[in-house]
C-alpha cells in the first residue's frame, strides 16, 4: 500500500488544499504555491480536481491525463485527470477481478455515476491520486471554482459512513434476494426490506430499483478496497498535515465568501491556515499620478484619473475590511496580501505570485 502520510524518514508530507469562488485567481495561487515549494527544493505535485483543467494554462503545459513534469520548474509535476475517463478507470481498477466488472457495463445507474456528475470526478481524482502521490514531499490541490468545492471535504466522510454502516451490507443483500427459495424465518426477516423495495418499485419502477441495487451490490462486494481508497483520499483532504487555504478577491462581498468557507470548514472540524487576498492594486497607476499633477487637465481626463484613484483605493480598503473581519472571526489566522502582477502571460503571473508567496507565506511559516 502506498503510504502518503510518512515517507521513509518519517517526514510529514505537506499538503495544501486551495479553496475560492470563481474568478479570484485560485488556480493561479495554487500553481504559484506549488512553484514556490518546488523552488525551495521540495519535490511537489500540484493536482486539480477542476474538470476544466485551467491548471494547464497557468503552468503552460499541455493537458494530459497522467502526471507530467512542468518543464520550466525543476521538482514540480502536475496532475489534471480527465473528467470523462477518470471515474470509469478508477471504477474499473476497483472492480477488477470481481464478477461485477462486466455486469455493470450497461447499467444505466453506473453509467450516470461515471458520466462526470459533480462530486464523482473530484472523488475519482483523489482516489486515483493515492498511488501517484508517492515520492512527493508536498501536494497542492486546486479545487473546482465554486463554493460547492467545499462539499468535497465532507464527501469521503459521508461515503465512509455509508461503507462502514450496516446500511451497505443490508442494501447489498437486498440485491441478491430475488428468486431464492426461502424458509418461513427468512421470509419473516425479509418482510421489512421487501416492503421497502416494493415501495421504491412502486415509485421508481422495477428496473431502476434493480439497477440501483446492482450498483450497491457491486460497491458492497469491494467494500474493503473502496474503504481504503476513500480513507486515503479523505486523509489527503482532511488529514492532520493538510493546510486549507482560502483565496479571496479584494472587493466588498468577499467577507461573506471568507465567512462561508471558514464556517463550512469549521463544520468539518477544520480551519483555514491562510487567507490569501489576491490582486490588490496597492498603488495608483503612475500615469494617473502624473496626469493629476498637471494644472490644466481636460475634465474627461480628470474623471479618468479620479476613477483610477478610487479603484486602486477600493481594493486596498476592501482588503483591510476583510482583514478586520477575519481578525474577529478567526483570530491569529495568517493573512497574505498578493498584489496585482503586471506580467501578461499566465505562467509569468504564476512565477511572480510564487516569489511573493515565498517571501510572505513560506518564510513566515518557517519562522513561526
Amino acid at each position: 500500500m502506498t503510504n502518503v502520510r510518512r515517507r521513509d524518514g518519517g517526514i510529514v508530507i505537506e499538503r495544501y488544499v486551495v479553496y475560492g469562488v470563481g474568478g479570484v485567481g485560485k488556480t493561479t495561487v495554487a500553481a504559484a504555491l506549488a512553484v514556490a515549494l518546488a523552488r525551495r527544493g521540495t519535490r511537489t505535485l500540484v493536482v486539480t480536481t477542476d474538470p476544466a483543467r485551467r491548471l494547464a494554462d497557468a503552468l503552460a503545459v499541455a493537458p494530459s491525463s497522467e502526471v507530467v513534469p512542468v518543464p520550466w520548474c525543476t521538482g514540480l509535476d502536475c496532475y489534471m485527470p480527465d473528467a470523462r475517463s477518470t471515474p470509469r478507470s478508477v471504477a474499473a481498477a476497483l472492480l477488477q477481478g470481481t464478477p461485477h466488472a462486466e455486469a455493470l457495463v450497461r447499467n444505466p445507474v453506473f453509467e450516470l455515476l461515471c458520466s462526470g456528475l459533480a462530486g464523482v470526478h473530484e472523488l475519482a481524482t483523489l482516489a486515483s491520486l493515492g498511488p501517484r502521490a508517492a515520492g512527493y514531499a508536498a501536494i497542492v490541490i486546486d479545487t473546482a471554482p465554486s463554493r460547492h468545492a467545499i462539499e468535497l471535504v465532507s464527501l469521503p466522510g459521508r461515503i465512509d459512513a455509508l461503507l462502514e454502516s450496516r446500511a451497505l451490507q443490508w442494501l447489498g443483500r437486498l440485491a441478491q434476494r430475488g428468486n431464492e427459495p426461502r424458509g418461513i424465518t427468512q421470509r419473516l426477516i425479509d418482510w421489512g426490506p421487501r416492503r421497502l423495495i416494493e415501495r421504491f418499485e412502486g415509485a421508481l419502477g422495477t428496473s431502476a430499483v434493480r439497477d440501483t441495487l446492482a450498483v450497491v451490490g457491486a460497491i458492497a462486494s469491494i467494500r474493503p478496497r473502496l474503504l481504503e481508497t476513500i480513507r486515503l483520499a479523505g486523509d489527503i483532504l482532511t488529514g492532520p498535515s493538510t493546510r486549507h487555504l482560502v483565496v479571496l478577491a479584494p472587493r466588498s462581498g468577499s467577507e461573506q465568501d471568507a465567512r462561508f468557507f471558514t464556517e463550512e470548514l469549521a463544520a468539518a472540524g477544520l480551519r483555514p491556515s491562510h487567507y490569501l487576498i489576491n490582486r490588490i492594486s496597492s498603488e495608483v497607476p503612475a500615469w494617473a499620478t502624473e496626469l493629476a499633477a498637471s494644472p490644466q487637465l481636460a475634465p474627461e481626463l480628470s474623471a479618468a484619473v479620479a476613477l483610477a484613484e478610487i479603484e486602486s483605493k477600493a481594493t486596498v480598503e476592501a482588503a483591510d475590511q476583510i482583514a478586520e473581519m477575519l481578525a474577529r472571526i478567526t483570530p491569529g489566522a495568517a493573512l497574505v496580501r498578493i498584489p496585482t502582477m503586471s506580467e501578461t502571460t499566465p505562467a509569468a503571473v504564476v512565477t511572480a505570485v510564487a516569489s511573493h508567496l515565498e517571501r510572505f507565506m513560506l518564510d513566515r511559516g518557517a519562522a513561526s
Partner: protein
Amino acid sequence: MAIRALSPPLTLVLGKGGVGRSTVARALTQAARNAGLRARCVELGPGSGLRAGGSPAQRQSGASDGVLQIDRGQALENAAAPVFGSRALARAALGNFAVKRLLDVLPGIHEYALLLNAVDLVGADLPVPCDRLIVDMPATGHGLSWLGAAQRFARLVPKGRSREQADRLDATLRDPLQTALVVTCVPEPLVLSETLELRAELRAQLGRDADLLVFNRMPEVPPGAARAAHQLAADDTTLAPAAARLIAWLAAREEARALAVAAAAGIPFILLPDSSVGKHPAALTEMSLAGWA
C-alpha cells in the same frame, strides 16, 4: 413588462459562484415588485422546513420581501410525497437507515428536488400570495448541470409516477412561457468562456438559450476620455507617455465590455457597473435594474 425574463411565473437565476447571483436574484425580485408584481425570491438553504428567510424581524412580521428558503431535506420529502403516494410513506421510505445514507452520497439529488419544489411552488397556496417566483439556483457546477437532471432521471426510470414527474419538470424548463432563464456573470475571460459553455449546455440539454444575461462588475469607461487622451498625447510631449498608458487602460476596459457584449450575442443583456466604488452592491444592482425596467 420591460424585463421579458420576468414574464413567466418562474425565473431561474443561474451562474457560477462568486459572480453576484444572489444579488441579481434579489434585484430582479425588487424590479418585479417595482413593476407592480407580487414577486418572491426562493433559495435552497440549510435549516429545517419551508420558512421565510431574511432577518428575524422580517420573519416575525411576515414581511413579503423575506426570501423563501427551501430546506434540503424537506425539498426531497416534498418531491417524493406524490411519488410514494403520501408524505408519510415518502418519509418512511427515505428515512430508512440505509436509504438515508445512500441519499447522502448521491450527487445532484438535492438540486433535482429543489427544481421540483420550485415548479410546485408556482400556483401553490402560499401564506403570502405571489405571482412571480425568482429562484436563486445553486452555483452551476461543471460537467452535467442539474438542469438536465430531469432527462437523466428519465433515462433511469422508464415509467411510473416519478417518470411523469421528471417529464413534467423537463417540459416546464423547456417552455419559455413557463420558465425564464437568467444567467449572471462577470466580464472576466475565464467567467465569460464558462458563460458561453453554459449557454451551449442550455441549448443542448433544454433546447433553448438563456433569456437574459446580467453582467456584474462592468468596469466604467469615462465618456470622452479616450478622445481627450489622444488629444493630450498629440499636444503635450511631456505628458504623452502618461497619456499613452491611459489610452491602454481605457482600451483594456473597452475590450472587457466588447468581450461581454460578444458573450451575450443573440440574447438581451444588462451591464451593471462595478460596485467596488464605495456603493453597496445590492443597492447599486437594484438601482440599475430598476432604471432598466
